[in-house]
């Protein structure tokens, strides 16, 4: 049986090295973000702008997707649609198969993780190398990313040094970061040189111009989209943006929120394959548009806010839970607050409902989200759906799949007590009178806390006495 979220989280909490790697990284990223958002008013205006741009995209999503498709095709970019992860993988495999491709290099793409592309290609004899340094490290370690922006954030440089020493021929132990990056550079340059296909994600796809925008620092994204003869971009259908003039505020929000950079080293705008006469760039560019549950999310006007996300990762960086348990404890491709909102929606509440419990609803995520997604509210809504009593006929979403009898009865009992003042007064009176007899142990609570001690008299009683006293005074 796979461990539950709570079990994984508990294990992660006990892992001292992991705790300190995450604590250090999160403190660093929070500080970096704060250092580029010093003007609170500008930040508020920019977030409102980002929110509205993304909301307007959603309001016209189907027609913008059609426009994007038409513009891309006009530019010579081939557009493919995939409803499921399997369809997306198959589309990509077929493109590669047709070109007789054996080696692919991949830039950072969470959507490719979402569809399980590496595995799919591997089982069909195609090697797919991750070229983002963090992703490369994670692939070498046979792990998955623990963060959507910094995939190897769970590892210290010493752990990476040991990994390189163990897995790469001819590399000795060094914890010098420049040397480690140098090793990666050398190995991956060779792969870029040889690769048949480059795969990338997309940060923004501009409908007006048919332009695919990629944000990165390393240059591996440019390598993947420039050097191999074929470029395949894969993205979720929500990544479309209406106009090129919408890009500056979104880019600024993305890079500043993600890593505290005013801009990344590269902002790569691709609008067509190599044109006649041009000397480099891919001969073919493909865009795979993935649904995978997004159109279902889109049906609900409240949950639809999920789709504004620009995948900056700020919500996880500021999440006090993620900061302590790390990305792997969630057991999903997208971790942290946005993961808790996305995963149960795309893969169903039955499978991922439990992760919505890993949230204190403190709201730090929504406070930093560059497009003002009310993540805590969405998490609360998903909790409600997973525990709902009424189950719809077509229940792929897993409505009510986590409803537990005991919990439902407990809340029913709670309701009876709290909606009827007379019962409430009786119960609270009893608690205050029996305070000395209170059990020393309340399950989970007293494992970490001393038992709470009720006051000898409730506020209700004290107020009653007060009233009697004043009315007596009045009579005198």
């Amino acid at each position, binding site marked *: 049986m796979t461990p539950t979220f*709570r079990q994984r*989280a*508990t294990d992660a*909490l006990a892992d001292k090295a992991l705790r300190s790697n995450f604590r250090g990284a999160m*403190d660093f990223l929070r500080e970096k973000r704060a250092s580029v958002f010093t003007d609170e008013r500008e930040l508020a205006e920019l977030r409102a702008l980002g929110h509205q741009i993304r909301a307007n995209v959603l309001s016209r999503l189907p027609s913008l997707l059609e426009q994007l498709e038409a513009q891309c095709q006009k530019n010579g970019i081939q557009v493919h649609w995939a409803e499921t992860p399997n369809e997306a993988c198959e589309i990509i495999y077929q493109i590669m198969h047709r070109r007789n491709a054996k080696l692919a290099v991949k830039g950072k793409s969470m959507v490719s993780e979402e569809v399980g592309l590496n595995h799919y290609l591997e089982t069909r004899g195609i090697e797919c190398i991750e070229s983002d340094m963090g992703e490369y490290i994670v692939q070498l370690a046979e792990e998955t990313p623990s963060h959507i922006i910094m995939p190897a954030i769970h590892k210290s440089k010493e752990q990476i040094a040991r990994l390189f020493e163990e897995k790469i021929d001819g590399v000795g132990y060094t914890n010098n970061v420049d040397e480690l990056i140098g090793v990666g550079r050398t190995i991956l340059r060779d792969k870029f040189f040889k690769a048949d296909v480059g795969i990338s994600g997309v940060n923004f796809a501009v409908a007006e111009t048919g332009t695919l925008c990629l944000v990165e620092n390393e240059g591996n994204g440019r390598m993947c989209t420039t050097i191999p003869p074929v470029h395949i971009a894969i993205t979720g259908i929500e990544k479309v943006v209406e106009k090129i003039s919408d890009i500056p505020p979104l880019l600024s929000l993305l890079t500043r929120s993600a890593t505290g950079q005013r801009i990344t080293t590269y902002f790569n705008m691709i609008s067509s394959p190599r044109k006649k006469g041009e000397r480099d760039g891919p001969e073919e560019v493909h865009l795979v548009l993935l649904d995978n549950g997004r159109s279902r999310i889109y049906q609900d006007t409240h949950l639809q806010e999920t789709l504004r996300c620009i995948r900056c990762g700020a919500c996880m960086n500021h999440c*006090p*839970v993620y900061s*302590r*348990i790390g990305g792997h404890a969630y057991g999903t491709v997208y971790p942290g607050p946005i993961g808790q909102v996305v995963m149960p929606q795309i893969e169903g509440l039955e499978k991922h409902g439990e992760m919505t*419990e*890993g*949230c*204190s*609803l*403190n*709201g*730090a995520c*929504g*406070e930093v989200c560059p497009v003002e997604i009310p993540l805590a509210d969405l998490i*609360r809504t998903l*909790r*409600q*759906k*997973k*525990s*709902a009593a009424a189950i719809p006929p077509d229940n792929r979403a897993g409505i009510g799949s986590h409803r537990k009898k005991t*919990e*439902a009865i407990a*809340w029913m009992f*709670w*309701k009876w*007590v*709290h*909606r009827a*003042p007379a019962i*409430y007064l009786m119960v*609270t009176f009893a*608690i*205050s009178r029996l305070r000395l007899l209170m059990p020393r142990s309340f*399950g*989970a*609570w007293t*494992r*970490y*806390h*001393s*038992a*709470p*001690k*009720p*006051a000898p*008299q*409730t*506020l*209700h*009683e*004290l*107020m*009653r006495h*007060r009233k009697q006293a004043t009315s007596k005074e009045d009579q005198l």
Partner: protein
Amino acid sequence: MSEHTPSIPAEVYFFGTCLIDVFYPDAGISAIELIEREGIKVIFPPQQTCCGQPPYNSGYNDEAIEVAAAQIALFTRPIPVVVPSASCAAMMKHHYPRLLEGHPLHAQALNLANRIYEFSEFLSNTVNITLQDKGPPIKIVLHQSCSARREMQVTTQTMQLLHQLENVEICEPERASECCGFGGTFAIKQPEISAAMGKDKCDAIKKTGVLNLISGDCGCLMHLSGMMAKDNAPIRSEHIASLLWRRTR
């Protein structure tokens, strides 16, 4: 955030919250004394129970709605409702209107939402209270809850009150704005994570060397003081209303 109201009301409602009712009634009385000292009549509807947050945050909306509706029916006159807890205030101000959408009491919920004031916010903004510190010098750590920071945005008002107390020195622990891990039913459902967050918060508080912990939210206080007590840490925790009343009466 509420605007500065032009005139000080003659009467207010007081919503005591269930935690204060059972565990911290002294904080409730102190809050009421402070308001009354300003010449404002405090009405405490005796039928009040709980704002409904626990089932609401657990996804049991039907149960939350019934209890919320019962509260809404108690606070109908057009006067402010003072709530000595930012998280309960946020429930009534921000979440009731959403929770009761389509419910016959929706209009009343909206009306109530506009009259909700967190306790510090009310004293500082609405009453514009002047406080005279009569107590000996002490140092405190102020824990501002996540609801106070984000949903109610009343941290400056709380600070404004405490700054008036001459002999009180406020110390800020490391990562002050990070959640303490209480989160209501979260502490019961995910006790390991909650405790890990709580432990970090307790450690940060202990590191300041200060022995008085103050907060405007009794949930956080119960969580933190419960963890401290389990550890035999000699820290005394108190709701801000108790501190203000104790030192200015």
